[in-house]
């Protein structure tokens, strides 16, 4: 069975941007800290507007933050 996986570089980008805290990023993009935490852990897929707001907060294109990977069973076995 194929599974969707949305990987992100938020944690890395936060540290590259002056060790920004999760709370600071949350305030910047207008969400709660728990949402940033869930997105970073890959447990919550943000909406498109929120993904764009996060990209804008780091001044980078969307693709450099979020990567979508489609994994199949054969990929998992390897």
């Amino acid at each position, binding site marked *: 069975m194929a599974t969707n996986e949305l990987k992100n570089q938020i944690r890395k980008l936060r540290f590259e941007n002056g060790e920004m805290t999760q709370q600071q990023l949350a305030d910047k993009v207008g969400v709660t*800290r728990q949402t940033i935490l*869930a997105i970073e852990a890959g447990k919550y897929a943000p909406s498109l507007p929120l993904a764009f707001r996060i990209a804008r907060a780091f001044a980078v294109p969307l693709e450099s933050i979020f990567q979508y990977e489609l994994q199949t069973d054969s990929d998992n076995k390897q």
Partner: protein
Amino acid sequence: MNKTQKGAMAVMVISILLLVFSMTIPLAWLYKVPVLRILPLVFLVLSYIAMGLSIIFFRKKQSPGEVDFDERDRIIKRKAILASYITLWILVFLGCTIPFMITDQCGIMPVSLLPIVLFIMFIIVMLVYSLTILMQYGRGE
């Protein structure tokens, strides 16, 4: 903890106290022991205290610029409403069938039990609502 979590936590504590309160009322009626007669009042007072404390608990923010709720909170709340709605239907079904099974077709039940049963139903629905919210945050959904 964000506002939705705090709200759910407050609702959970108040619901548990009110549930115990409503369950101790029949006990106070059935047994004429003075301690049991005070018990409902104790839990009612405790639930009022919890309501008061939850207001103070709500005021504290994680940061000055923190938003009250976001898109994820909205999804979590929607799932919790669905869970509590399903629970309500299950409770209505049980509330109709259990007294019928206990008292039989021509059985008699005190009318005063009806508001207590409805109150307990309402409290259980609120408890399920708050627990569903807390569980979703716990799982990091």
